[in-house]
């Protein structure tokens, strides 16, 4: 009995260390840049700015973690942002400013649900489907924009929505709601179970198709929110909107410790930590005035370094 207790403790510490490593990395990066820049990066305005920047990514990441926990990587975000933004603003132009938000949500939900249902229907890897949806979104958006002479912009009557407090409030509510949804309800637990072993989940009476689609629905809703935040912030949308968004979000999540293969080890906080880590890095490098050509080098090395330290190699014996 005593031995059992001991072994338990051992495991807790090991896991705890891994859990907190991304946070440690975040603290380290913040401290490093604070020291190098003589405290500039720690100024309140700068911190607020980083938090503001983080909102869109966190909200998007919170949605994607659901599909990721299914073991389905999503490479479609750039296309969805592009298409959602463009169609939303297009609709606003002809139907009135408030239409933009419902249209964006409609587009993003349709896109994500399309990925989910094609994934189920065709039985092919979600990455392929999401690639296709991304290409499709970009193509259609480009087509729309290309045939116009005037670029798309946010109706002035909505620009009041772009303010810090609203962004923070939305993001914090999203984090809380999604954490509960992900860690403390059937929806999240079952999505993770499907990611761990879909046939076991099915044999345990989990309606795999339904919960997969629900996970994609959540992703769609959160992407809708994220695209809305992007559009409000950018004030416009165009054929290049969202470029690189998918890779950035994925990188952020993995740096924060999310598992690419899904399953029960997925954690919501890895989204938050990863996003902040990434943005602090970018912000810090800019503040230090590093040559943009060097930034890639430094970022690359730091990515590799931090992921090497924090990546959980336990659950995945063979790393993809």
């Amino acid at each position: 009995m005593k031995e059992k207790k001991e072994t338990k403790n051992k495991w807790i510490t090991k896991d705890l260390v891994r859990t907190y490593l991304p946070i440690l990395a975040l603290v380290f990066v913040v401290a490093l840049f604070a020291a190098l820049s003589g405290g500039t990066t720690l100024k309140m305005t700068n911190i607020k700015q980083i938090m503001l920047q983080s909102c869109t990514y966190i909200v998007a990441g919170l949605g994607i973690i659901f599909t990721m926990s299914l073991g389905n990587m999503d490479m479609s975000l750039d296309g969805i942002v592009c298409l959602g933004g463009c169609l939303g603003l297009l609709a606003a132009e002809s139907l009135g400013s408030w239409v933009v938000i419902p249209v964006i949500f409609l587009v993003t939900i349709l896109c994500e649900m399309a990925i989910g249902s094609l994934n189920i229907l065709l039985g092919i890897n979600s990455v392929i489907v999401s690639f296709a949806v991304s290409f499709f979104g970009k193509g259609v958006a480009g087509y729309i924009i290309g045939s116009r002479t005037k670029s798309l912009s946010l109706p002035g009557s909505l620009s009041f929505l772009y303010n810090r407090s609203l962004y923070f409030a939305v993001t914090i509510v999203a984090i809380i709601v999604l954490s509960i949804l992900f860690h403390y309800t059937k929806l999240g637990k079952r999505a993770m179970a499907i990611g761990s072993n879909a046939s076991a989940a099915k044999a345990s009476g989990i309606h795999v198709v339904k919960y997969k689609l629900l996970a994609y629905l959540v992703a769609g809703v959160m992407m809708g929110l994220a695209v809305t935040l992007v559009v409000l912030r950018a004030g416009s949308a165009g054929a290049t909107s969202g470029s690189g968004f998918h890779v950035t979000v994925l990188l952020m999540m993995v740096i924060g410790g999310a598992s690419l293969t899904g399953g029960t080890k997925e954690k919501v906080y890895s989204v938050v930590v990863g996003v902040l880590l990434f943005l602090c890095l970018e912000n810090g490098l800019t503040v230090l005035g590093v040559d943009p050509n060097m930034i890639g080098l430094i970022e690359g090395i730091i990515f590799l370094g931090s992921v090497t330290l924090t990546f959980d190699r336990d659950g995945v014996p063979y790393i993809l």
Partner: protein
Amino acid sequence: GCGNNKDSEAADSQTKDGGAGTVSESGSGEEDSKAADSDISIGVVIWSTDDGLGADSKTALDAVAEDLNVSLVYRTGSYDAESQTTDYENLLAAGVDGILCCVINDTSTDDLLKICEEAGIPMQIFFRNIMDEDAYNYCMASDLFAGYICEDEGGAGVDMVDELLASGCTTFGLLNREAGNGVIDRRQAGVMEYLDEKGLTYYVSTSSNTATATDMVDATDQLLAAHSDINGLICSSGSNGAIDAIITDLQGSDIKITSFDTPVDIPGSFEAGNLVMLTTGAQIDPVYALINLYCKITGKAKSDTPAEYGSNYIYMKSAEDAATYEQYFSEFNTYTAEEVQGLVEMDLDSFVAEMGNYSLEMVAEKMK
């Protein structure tokens, strides 16, 4: 300065130190003992500093920045409005005193300006005018908007069509880029409007924005294969080697080419026989923009309202033009340090006149 290569290294390291100093000082508001203008830093938001035009612009900007004793902080790689917003925020955190920006999305110009207004620093855009009416009105009414500079893209497009017509072309092929890049959009629109106006036949091939040289040549081949009657080609962009590739690809055919971007070996390209016109020299645009912004930052603004300038394209139509260009534009330091100071001191009218003077001949004259 042509001759101050040695000094430049020293100055370089100095500006870097100065830059870092600025960051902490402007933030903490400490009193500063250096010369007033030694620690001005300006953020430059540009698509990239690696492709042909981007790299030339950076070279030209760095040369002038050195003369002005300004440090530049570049942000590259943002291809949408959201990322440019982030760039602005990060530059402000870095404590820049002004931002020079090539806006990606026309309609977001006013939103970007608002960020600067919040921080109380001026902003200047280059390679762009503002087409969106609301954005234009907002910017023009702002105290912190230094102005915009752009080439007459549409006009250049018209000239290209005319040049092709003069060399006997009847049917046109347009190698366009995906919509989204304001300046390229404008070129394309200018060309197409003019072609429509004249009732000429033309076919369009559109490549993605990150098209490589190979993609662009393939696009050319496809366009020509699909429409064998094309005999005039207009390339709206291709500074990543694409234009070189297209010129080589078409060598020997009787298809005439005009391009907005320059190949590496310009005289050689003209000698190859197909090229009839190039527009170039645009790297001066950010230089004028920088000077204008610098004046605004140092309180010597050239005008009370935002300045609207047009900068000249340099047209090249023969190998001789090209040789002249090669000879005098190798370093892109069109103006000496004294001349830069002169430009700073100039009043608005002379500055505009100076910009209007900018041409192949003028540079050749100066360089002699």
